[in-house]
């Protein structure tokens, strides 16, 4: 190869730690913001904030650890990880059948583990691995194979039933294909196909899932359920105005009109207490993280790194979009948390491992080949 005049630039401290400073700072800011809001949303329960802090510490540690793994190693692990994930999903369904009910957890004795979380990483890794073997953009056969590899876990997860996670896993796979340069005609064709299949999806849905869609179309129809949630959440956000009612002063949240205020609906607490300005600050932080992820995508050195970094970044975007869309009444109620802010541990750990991978892609640079 001709000298790419990449002078062996002095390897900085951050690179030796395999951390991306801008991303790290933004993530820390986001989590700090989340803890402050959680203190208010939990009804000033320090115990809850401490538990969340412990989870965050674990998640950050895992991120640090994963960032040390060279992406070439991750590339090799992609297919086995994917296979293990699928096997665990099947195991969960079998156990669930025996238990006669919704079953998402696999009890490994010591820890309970949600295999669908693993697939949020394993699916984009698998597709990136598959497409990185040949030149981009991928051709039809490879796109079809990718579609099968994405839809298999998605259907297994939708059967659990866990619509929110199924959606996230599907978008993870789809975004890798998008970044890989899948032709626009194909993208439009698939979108048209999904629209045409919508009635069939409706038939395949569980009753409660249909109910949620109906509630979205007519929030007044379910006064004890999610319709009430949406109305109260819109009142909370709207009454916040430009500057908000002030931290710890949200009436909607503290008088318990707002449901799930420390988990899925925490965005409404932010809207009520910190107002439009507070929310803009939060959205700006999210936007910065996503754009930084895309910059890393473009500057990644190999195909696998590019595809995976892009896919993981855009899944994070889907989290933000689905949650804020739901809380503001733009989208139907799907159980997706506000990433790194909502109380709860499982998705947080997965997300931070994802950022660990993105940092690894950014910082493990091969020496220029001569």
């Amino acid at each position, binding site marked *: *190869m001709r000298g790419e005049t990449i002078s062996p630039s002095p390897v900085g401290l951050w690179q030796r730690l395999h951390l991306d400073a801008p991303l790290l700072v933004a993530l820390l800011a986001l989590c700090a913001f989340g803890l402050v809001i959680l203190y208010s949303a939990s009804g000033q329960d320090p115990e809850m904030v401490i538990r969340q802090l412990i989870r965050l510490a674990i998640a950050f540690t895992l991120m640090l650890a994963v960032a040390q793994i060279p992406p070439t190693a991750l590339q090799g692990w992609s297919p086995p990880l994917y296979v293990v994930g699928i096997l665990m999903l099947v195991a969960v369904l079998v156990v669930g059948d025996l238990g006669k009910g919704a079953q998402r957890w696999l009890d490994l004795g010591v820890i309970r583990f949600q295999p669908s979380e693993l697939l949020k990483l394993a699916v984009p890794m698998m597709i990136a691995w598959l497409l990185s073997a040949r030149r981009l953009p991928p051709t039809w056969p490879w796109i079809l194979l990718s579609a099968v590899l994405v839809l298999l876990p998605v259907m297994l997860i939708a059967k659990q039933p866990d619509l929110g996670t199924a959606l996230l896993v599907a978008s993870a796979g789809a975004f890798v294909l998008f970044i890989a340069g899948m032709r626009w005609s194909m993208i439009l064709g698939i979108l048209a196909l999904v629209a045409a299949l919508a009635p069939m999806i409706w038939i395949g849905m569980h009753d409660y899932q249909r109910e949620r869609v109906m509630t979205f179309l007519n929030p007044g129809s379910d006064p004890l359920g999610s319709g009430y949630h949406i109305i109260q959440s819109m009142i909370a956000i709207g009454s916040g105005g430009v500057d908000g009612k002030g931290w710890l002063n949200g009436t909607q949240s503290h*008088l318990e009109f707002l449901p799930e205020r420390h988990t899925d609906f925490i965005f409404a607490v932010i809207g009520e207490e910190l107002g439009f300005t507070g929310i803009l600050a939060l959205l700006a932080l999210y936007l910065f993280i996503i754009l930084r992820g895309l910059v890393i995508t473009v500057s990644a050195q190999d195909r696998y790194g590019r595809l995976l970094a892009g896919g993981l970044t855009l899944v994070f975007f889907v989290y933000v979009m689905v949650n804020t869309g739901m809380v503001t009444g733009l989208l139907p109620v799907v159980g997706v948390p506000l990433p790194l802010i909502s109380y709860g541990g499982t998705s947080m750990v997965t997300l931070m491992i994802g950022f660990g991978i993105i940092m690894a892609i950014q910082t493990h640079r091969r020496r220029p080949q001569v």
Partner: protein
Amino acid sequence: MLESNFDERKREGRLVGTRALIAAFIVITALLAVVLRLAHLQLAGHEHFSVLSRDNRVKVQPVSPARGLIFDAKGILLADNHPAFSLEITIEKVTDLAATLDELGRLIKIEPQDRARFERQRRQRIRFQGVPIRLNLTPEEVARFAVDAHRFTGVEIRADLVRTYPHGEDTAHVLGYVGRINEQDLARIDKSNYAGTQHIGKGGVEKAHESLLHGRVGYQQVEVNARGRVVRTLESHPPVSGADLHLYLDIDLQQVAREALGTERGAVAAIDPRSGGVLALVSTPSFDPNPFVSGISQKDYHALLNSPDKPLFNRAVRGQYPPGSTIKPFVGLAGLEAGVTTPRRSTYCPGYFSLPGHSHRFRCWRRGGHGAQNLQQAIAQSCDVYFYDLANRLGIDRLSSSLADFGFGSVTGIDVADELGGLLPSREWKQRARKEAWYPGETLIVGIGQGSFLATPLQLAAATAAIANRGQLIQPRVARAAQPPGEAQAKPLPLVSSRIAVSDEQHWQQLIDDMAKVIESGTARRIHSTSYRIAGKTGTSQVFSLGQNQRYNAAKIPKHLQDHALFIAFAPVEEPRIAIAVIVENGGSGGSTAAPIARRVMDAYLGAAGSGDAQEH
């Protein structure tokens, strides 16, 4: 080559770069849509929503429906709702729990066991759901708290209907009980229909008919003050109570059956063969279900759980026992149907049976042998050799499929939750479960209801009812009808029945005559009745195996290893109104232990009270 490789990399870099740029554009557009929506809510809609928020004094509260009552066949109440007041703490709303508890303790008596139950339920609670600190408050206590209620944020009096079972131990197994909803229950129910409800059926009829008994949740819109207390009710959508259940079960007969079993461990299942209705379903020893409703103490629960007699175990539908000789009439029918035997054909019993070419001796229970036996004699005397020979000539495939027709090996489908289906051995089962081929010797053992063969008392009763019905196999049901609130008439619940096909209807008569002979002059002659005719079959099933030349001697074997006593019967023979199966664990022989219990139940049901005409031998 190097050149093109480099170009290729540049081209791909450009492609991914373009896509990332488009993605960034989509992300910004989508977030802009959220910002616009927020502007719509927070800037344009601010006035509107501020008013709504300030006036947001209206809360929606669920109102739980009253659970359906359960009545026996004669209209006697078996499961009631009893109004009771309890004091509840919503821990999330309390700032200093210890101080609150101290304050409360000065106002209302709180016993250490109340504290213990509170601590236990507190750990399993669902967030923002109240946890009871005291149950069954007296009216004075309610009044005393009401005066000081303003001092206790997060503490509330709750008026509830508490489930009670007036016949407690008599109905514990068949009805089950209701208990507090836990995480597992939450996974299988419609949460919004259970908003405000704290109990759910945990077993028996209560669990099997949960959807009928529960009803439909209602809600009310209430106005609350700044501290969240209800000021007045604005709008109310009342709940729909659950349907009342009317059972086939006869509580008097249930009591008779329980008394007849006495202190033995065992079970009685009695069915009306005409309807499939369960007249009595008893498992002993029993337990009092009432403490389970409010939350039984850990100590009492462990005492029940660890008792060697297993009182919590529902032997009638979950106890799986080798059916022993009670299976012989069914095997006899299989033989007649397959044409491998006839009523006249006889087999010589020298006291043992050996497969051709084998020296192993399969023993008859009578060591001296029965001599020549035809089918009727073999059933009446319970000759094992006859059935070894018959099973051998039938082969396991025909035997197993014929027994499956009577429901052996699968659940009956009774409306008592968590029933087990026993085990009907077959070639496929053995290959699947043990990865082994079938041996001819095992067929012989199945022919006398031993070995791996397992059946529940309920399965035996249902199969006996099918003989009494001459082939009509009806799914046993405890509940006869459901009466939704406000309806004058109870609606009958559907029955499921199927027909066991036979080549010759005469075979049923033959079988019934053979079983009548058991009572007239056979192994159960001690329960012979002059007021009505009974058809039955005794059984004794081994708990552990004896060696080739060992003798069974009850006096030398510890009680828990002694044989189980079984008996199946129906009566009157001419027009059967009751079919029954009795099992007494380690009770010895079916004829002497189990049959008299069945007789007492049949006497009580058929109105021939007193056992003066029972012949003692």
